[in-house]
C-alpha cells in the first residue's frame, strides 16, 4: 500500500487451498447465475440472449479463475503480541488493526466446502463486531485461535 505506514505489513498468507475454496464458491455462483441466463434465452432470445451468455461467461471467468487467484495473493494476516493485523482486498485494499486487549473471544468456523478442503475460518470478536481470517488449514486455524486466546487473556477490558 502506498500509504506508507511505519507498522510492518502483515506477512502470513492463507492456505493455498483457499483458491480452490473460492473457485468452488465461484462455481456455485456461476450455476446460480445460469438460471437468469437461461430465462433470458428462452424468453427473449437473439441479441439479448447473446449478451446474457457473454455476461455469464465473463462472470464465470472472474469468479472461478481471476478473483480467487488475485484475492489469495493479496491476503495477509499476522498475530502479534499486542495486536492482530489484517490486510486484504483487490479493488480496495483494507487494512485492519485490532488491539489484543479488545478481543473478547475467538472462534473457528467451517462451512461444508471448507470441511471438504480441510480449511477453517478464524473469527475474532470484539465489541465492535467480528473480523475473520478465512481459509486457513484446520491445524493452523486451531493454532492461531489458541494463540489469540492466550494473548487476549488480559484483565476485564471492555
Amino acid at each position, binding site marked *: 500500500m502506498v*500509504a506508507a505506514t511505519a507498522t510492518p505489513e502483515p506477512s502470513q498468507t492463507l492456505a493455498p487451498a483457499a483458491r480452490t475454496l473460492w473457485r468452488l464458491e465461484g462455481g456455485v455462483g456461476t450455476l446460480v447465475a445460469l438460471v437468469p441466463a437461461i430465462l433470458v434465452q428462452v424468453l427473449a432470445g437473439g441479441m439479448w440472449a447473446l449478451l446474457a451468455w457473454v455476461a455469464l461467461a465473463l462472470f464465470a471467468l472472474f469468479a472461478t479463475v481471476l478473483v480467487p487467484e488475485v484475492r489469495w495473493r493479496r491476503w495477509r494476516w499476522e498475530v502479534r503480541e499486542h495486536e492482530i493485523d489484517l490486510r486484504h482486498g483487490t479493488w480496495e485494499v483494507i487494512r485492519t488493526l485490532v488491539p489484543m486487549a479488545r478481543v473478547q473471544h475467538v472462534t473457528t468456523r467451517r462451512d461444508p466446502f471448507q470441511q471438504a478442503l480441510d480449511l477453517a475460518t478464524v473469527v475474532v470478536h470484539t465489541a465492535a463486531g467480528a473480523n475473520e481470517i478465512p481459509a486457513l488449514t484446520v491445524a493452523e486455524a486451531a493454532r492461531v485461535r489458541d494463540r489469540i486466546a492466550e494473548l487476549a487473556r488480559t484483565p476485564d477490558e471492555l
Partner: protein
Amino acid sequence: MSSEAEPGVAPRRLHPAGIAVLGVASLKELALPLMVAFVTAVLGAGGGGEPLFRVLAFGAFGALIAVVAGVVRWMTTTWAVSDAVIRYRTGVVSRKETDIPLSRVQAVDTVYGPLQRLFGVRGVHVQSAGGGREGEIRLPAVAPGDVAALRAAVDGRGGVAAAPAPLAEWRLGGRDLLLAALTAGQLGFIVPLLAAVPQLSQEVFGNDIRTAGAEGLRLVPDTTLEWIGAAAALLAVAWIVSIAGAVLTFAGFAVARDEQRLRLRRGLFARREATIPVARVQAVQLVEGVLRQPFGLVALRVEVAGYAAEHAAARTLFPLLRRADADAFLAALLPELAGTAPHVAGARLAPAPRRALRRYVLPPAAAALVLGAIAAVAIPGAGAWPLLVVVPAAAWGAECWRAAGWRLGDGRVQLRFRRMARITVLAPVARLQQHGLRQTVLQRRARLADVTARVGAGTRGHVRHLDAAVAGGIFDALRDPQAVEQRVVGAP
C-alpha cells in the same frame, strides 16, 4: 415487609397492575403476526358489510390474548430480597432465575409509564456491576412501599440505591426542547407509511382488484407538480409525527454527574431513568444534523460498553446544545473524555487535502446525473428539470469534503465526517476496538487513503480521501496510545 433480623422483602408477585403491563408487553411482541393476520383476514376475504365486525372481533381477540398472557406471566413471576440477595424468578416453560447480591447493585432506577401511573406503582430497574442481560432485573410493577424497602435493603448492604447529590447537572429547557423537536428530522417513519399506501388504496377502492387498479391509477400523480405535491405532503406528515415523537421522548431531559456515574432522565408520559457508569463510556459523538448545523446546534450521543443493542434514543447524552457550549458540557460532565484542553468544538481539525475535493463531488454528481436522466425520460412532461438534481448532489459532495477532518492529541482521537449529518467522533485512543486504512486502486494512484475506526458496538468513524502519508501516520499513531498522549499529532 421487614423481617426482624435484617431488611428484606418477602417473596411476592408483582403488583397486580403488572398484569396490565406484562399483557401490553406480550401484545407488543405479538404485534407483527397479529397485524399480518388482521390485514389478510379483514381485507382479503372480499366480504361486503362484514369488515367492521371483523375489526371488532380482532380487537376483542387481541385484548383477550393480552389479558391471558399478562395473567400467566404475572402468576409465574416472583421476586424477593433475602440473605443480602435480590432474587428474581420468571418463566412458564423455561424458568429464568436471576440473583443479584445487594452489595453489587449499582443503581435502582424507576420508570413511571402511563400504565404505572394509572395504578400508582413504579417500574423498577436494578442494575449490577456486571451489566448485560444477566446483571439486571426489571420489575414492571412494584408498590411504592416495596420500592422503598428494596432501596433500604440495597443501601444497608453497601450497594447504591439512591442518587447522591450531583456534582454537575445540565437540563434541557422548554425552548430548546421545541427547537430539538423541530430540527430532529427523523424521517425513518416514512418507510412504513409508504408501505401502507397499497393497503390503504385497496381498502378505499373496494375489493375488486381490476377496478381498484384502474381507479388507483387515476390517483397516481401524473404531472411533475402533483409528484412534488404528493412528496411534500408525505414529508410534512412525517415531519409532524417526528416532532411529536421527539417532544414526547426528550421532555424534561436532564443529565447529572456524580462521582462514578452519569444519570440521565427523560420522557413525558413514560419517565425513564438511565444510569451509566462513567468507566463504561467509550466515546462521544457530536451530531450536527442538516437542520441544526446552520444554527450552531449539536446533539450529543454517548457510546457505552454493554448498551449497544438499545434504541438510539437511549444513547442520547444530550438532545440539543449550542456548539459553543459543548466543551463546557463535556468538561463538567465527562472530564475523563474531554481531556485537559478544550478541543472538541473549538479546535480546528486537520482537513482533507484540496485534491480530494474532486473525489468527493464527482461520484454523487454522476449518480444524480444518471438518476435525473432516467427520470427525465420516464416521467412525461418533466422535460429536463430532473437533471437539476445534479446541483444538490454536487453541493452535498463538497460539503462532505469540507466536513472531513481529524485530530490526534491528549490521548484522544477526533474524526469528523459527513454522511447526512456532520458527525464528530471523540474517543480515547486506548478504547478503540479497531482501526484501519482503506485504499482503492484509484486512490493509490492519487496518493489518497481512508482512515477508519470503531469504538464500542455502534460508533464508527470513516474519514475519506486523506493524504496517503498522513493516513499512514494516523494508522501508526492509533496503535500507540502513549504516543498520542504526549504530543499533538494532528495539525491544529
